[in-house]
């Protein structure tokens, strides 16, 4: 049995003009200890997918489909039961370490919160555990006391505190929602390595959400490329990066700046994907990427492609996969 299996996940938003489908037919699964990446442009539904899994979306959003954690559909659980899973079985690291910590509580108090909540431990035990956690995220207690307030720490240190909070109960799944976007590149590197190490050390599974393909390449084994709430391509990171087959994935990779190329010469201009992310309120027919796709044909405008296999563990939603290209 898979640790987490998401089947046909759909998220709709109720508006005055009727429901809008924001996430459609998302399927994926993670084994214990596996690391999955979710990539896509801003607004493609990456974070929404993550929040749907731990059911933290506001009630305006309707989540349908199966979210099986150890075979149990957690989409059917009520709020009380969900509270026992959040932080305990699945926990999350957020993007903005500046705002994701409560400014009026000490870091020690904040890290111990989920331990108090989910593990009925004694005070001394909790203190010991928090010290261990801080040590394991690289903030040794002899230099960083438990009584520091978030404003006394740097961005990278705060993100470490966030990580300590998230892994306090040794969850089965750690969701990292763009954990390094707000940090500078050198700190980003350290934080990614830290997350990777901790995931391996505690046998957790990781869902890494990012728009940065480099981050995904560095941290994940499987990857899922999302566009406008749909999974465009998914498979093992190695295979997808080597044999990317969807025109959208291709576009994403082409848009990475290459060292040495000058942007002043027109022939070396940074390539982009023309157009914008489609407005989810507008009705569309066929493949949603059609308006921006240079390979689009009549069939793309007529019907939506089903998921098809490129290789073992490499699926794609496209009528015109680009086969045989090296990344």
């Amino acid at each position, binding site marked *: 049995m898979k640790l987490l299996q998401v089947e046909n996940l759909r998220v709709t938003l109720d508006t005055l003009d009727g429901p809008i489908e924001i996430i459609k037919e998302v399927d994926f699964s993670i084994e214990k200890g596996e690391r999955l990446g979710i990539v896509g442009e801003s607004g493609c539904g990456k974070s929404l997918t993550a929040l749907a899994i731990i059911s933290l979306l506001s009630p305006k959003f309707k989540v349908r489909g199966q979210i099986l954690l150890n075979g149990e559909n957690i989409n059917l659980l009520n709020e009380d039961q969900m509270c026992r899973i959040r932080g305990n079985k699945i926990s999350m690291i957020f993007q903005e370490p500046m705002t*994701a910590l*409560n*400014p009026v509580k000490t870091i020690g108090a904040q890290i111990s919160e*989920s331990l108090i909540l989910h593990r009925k431990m004694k005070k001394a035990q909790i203190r010991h555990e928090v010290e261990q956690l801080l040590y394991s995220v690289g903030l040794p207690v002899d230099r960083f006391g438990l009584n520091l307030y978030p404003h006394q720490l740097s961005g990278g240190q705060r993100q470490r505190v966030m990580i300590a909070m998230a892994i306090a109960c040794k969850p089965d799944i750690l969701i990292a929602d763009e954990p390094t976007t707000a940090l500078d590149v050198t700190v980003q590197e350290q934080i990614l390595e830290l997350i990777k190490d901790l995931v391996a050390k505690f046998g957790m599974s990781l869902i890494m959400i990012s728009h940065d393909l480099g981050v995904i390449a560095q941290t994940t084994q499987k990857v899922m490329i999302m566009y406008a709430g749909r999974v465009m391509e998914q498979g093992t990171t190695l295979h997808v990066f080597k044999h990317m087959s969807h025109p959208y994935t291709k576009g994403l990779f082409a848009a990475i700046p290459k060292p040495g190329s000058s942007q002043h010469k027109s022939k070396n201009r940074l390539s982009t994907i023309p157009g914008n992310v489609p407005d989810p309120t507008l009705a569309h027919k066929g493949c949603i990427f059609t308006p921006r796709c240079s390979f689009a044909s009549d069939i793309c405008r007529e019907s939506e492609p089903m998921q098809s296999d490129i290789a073992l563990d490499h699926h794609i939603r496209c009528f015109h996969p680009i086969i045989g290209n090296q990344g």
Partner: protein
Amino acid sequence: MFNRLSEILGHGLKNKNFVVGGFITIVFFGIALLSYVWSPHPIEDINISDKLLTPNTQYLLGTDHFGRDILSMLIMGAKNSIIVAFVAIGIGIGIGVPLGLIAASQGGWVDELIMRFNDFTLAFPSLISAIMITAILGPGAINSIIAIGIFNIPVFARVTRGGALSIWEKEFILAALSAGKSKIRISFEHVLPNTSSVLIVQATIQFAIGILAEAGLSYLGLGTQPPAASWGKMLNEAQTFLHFAPQLAIYPGLAIALTVLGLNLFGDGLRDVLDPKLRRNR
């Protein structure tokens, strides 16, 4: 914690409102505390032979129509005002703050129900409604506390809800939710500490209003009952003698005005001191 306090005090000493208001408030509280251990004369002491004396060495501020010492009555009145205002604020915070937190965390019909009930209560002028409540419950210090307290509830509920709603948008709330905390728990452990500065300021303002309301009720004979002393009651009794002993009205009037002024200045100053954004603009 101590560092934070001394930091606030450091900023506060640069703020004139805070210093002046704080000074008056401390004097007022000091006088009220003094009444527990010492007052020049017992206020129950009726000396008809000494009635309506002007200030002299025995009676520093003179005496009233029963020959009671005015200074002693002012001191006892300060204590009385503080107790009434304090307990009334306690009622307001004790009920209003949880209501505001629940409204903000639950949203939907719960929020709607609580806030519309709030509007309903606020729609009545507070002093007139307090008079109505004491008229129903009967006059007395306890009942005036209840009446004033009831009108503190919607004020605190509204302020708390407003502050809490802005805190609920913060990312650390999402982080707390993702740690598996329930909404009620988050309300008290994360939202409340972040709204406390607004609540503290509101409490000082409500304190001033409470003192005024208590004086008003006592003036009408609905609040503190004789022989206990109250500034409002002193004003009421002074009315009869206004032409030939105006000092009887001036002293309690001044006491009320100064105290309320001091508390308001203190509240204003405190708001500026607690809010780093306002502090920087000065």
